């Protein structure tokens, strides 16, 4: 279990699933069960954080005057003004 790098969400979720499955089979010692439970709680919290930490953002990636990449917020309401380049609306 690498502590250095945040585990990716899928891996954490899979591990959590495996732990729950093992616990549900109920063939472990109480001690081992508690150990797994503790791990499971940790993973669950990590996943929860991954899901809730970020906030939805909409940004546009452009080149600035020097041709460097620049990110700025993108407001679809004001910036999307029906198109000349138009694909037909679906």
């Amino acid at each position, binding site marked *: 279990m690498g502590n250095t790098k*945040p585990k*990716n*969400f*899928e891996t954490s*979720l899979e591990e*959590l*699933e495996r*732990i*729950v499955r093992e*616990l*549900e089979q*109920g063939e*472990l010692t*109480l001690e081992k*069960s*508690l150990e797994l*439970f503790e791990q*499971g*709680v940790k993973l*669950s919290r990590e*996943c*929860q954080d*991954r*899901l*809730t*930490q*970020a*906030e*939805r*953002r*909409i*940004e*546009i*990636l*452009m*080149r600035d005057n020097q041709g460097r*990449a620049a*990110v700025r917020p*993108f407001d*679809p309401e004001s*910036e*999307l*003004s*029906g*198109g*000349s*380049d*138009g*694909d*037909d*609306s*679906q």
Partner: protein
Amino acid sequence: MQPLLSSLFDQTERQPLSVSELTGMIRGELEKRFSSVWVEGEISNFRAHGSGHWYFTLKDEFAQLRSACYRSSNQRIRFRPEDGLQVRARGRLGVYEQKGEYQLIVEALEPVGAGALQLAFEQTKARLQAEGLFAAELKRAIPLLPRRVGVITSPSGAAIRDILNVISRRTRTVHVLFTSARVQGDGAAQEIVRAIKFLNDFHARALKDGRLDDAIDVMIVGRGGGSIEDLWAFNEEVVARAIRSSAIPVISAVGHETDFTIADFVADLRAPTPSAAAEIVAAHEAQLCSLLGTLTTNLARSIRYRIASSRTEVQELALSPAFDAVAARLHEAMVATGAAEHRLRTAITSTVQRAQRRVGAATHSLSPVHLSSAVRAARTRFESLSKARDAGIATRLETARQQLAMLAAALDAMSPLKVLERGYAIAHDAQGHIVREASTMTIGDALRLRLWKGVVDCRVEGTENE
């Protein structure tokens, strides 16, 4: 034809034309007459020259026509001519005077039957497929929970609106990074390619700088519906290759469900529409939230269950009969101990009480009042006794002496021995009784006579009562 022929004959009568002159005249006539023709035939001997020009022959059963399609014209032709292909060509006749040859200068070319674009599509598809660009092994998984999604499309099209709508509606946490590119018209393919590279560069730099949060998890490349011509950029080989070499997994989202483009085949995942692509990216957030919720609940439930079952086990063990017997014996022992303790306490109490009573009595009798009265009584008695003794002791001694003398004399006088000395005897019968009356005796009875000195045994010979 009439004026031409007659002019030729006219010339022969005067002086002959030079070859150049004649050829020039033919060229002029032919190029004027066939400045714009449509001709249909089969392509053979197709050659693409290094200069970018194409050379081939159009033929049918009975004739052949040398043809050329210069670079400036063939750049607009989407498909690639190949031998055996039945085509319609539009162009003009040109005469190459040095060789005295004429050829069709092709300005437009389209396949007979399928449309040119359709053919071009099939050709590109077959070529890239043969190259292995569509191989299933190359497809990368789309992350279950993409945090940052790159979107490449036109800023003025329906696609960007649809994608942003879906993502806004379906997710709370997905971050969209939009990069605009024209998606139709000349140069659209190149813009799309540039945008793909732009996002990839941005992604690579984020990874290199360790800004993991800026890394792009997945990219949507697409546009809304349109004609095959409108969608064409997504059939271009350059776009296909840019998609395939993207380090970021790509979801293609071009046109409607029924539109298939080369981009769709080469992408890691094909979404039927831009909205659908956004759904794919967004769908899992809610699902994962609920999955995570369920897992967390199950986690808690299973550990509660596990603990409860352990508790039950312990309780069952605690209730086992083995423990009952021990408990019963403990109880007995406790009862016995209790009884013994009670007896002991009672015994001690009564002993102590007895002792207390004795101590009390002793204390009482030792009390000064009691002692002094006892001492007084004893002294009184002692004093009266002393007086009586002093008064009576002399007379009593004299009387006693006299009595003693009289008694001694009487005793001496009454002594049987004294009587016997004087000759009396005492008769005893056989039983030893003293015989006082003759009537108690019969003849023959034994009599023992006690004399002063010695004894005589004798028998009664006769009695006489007085």
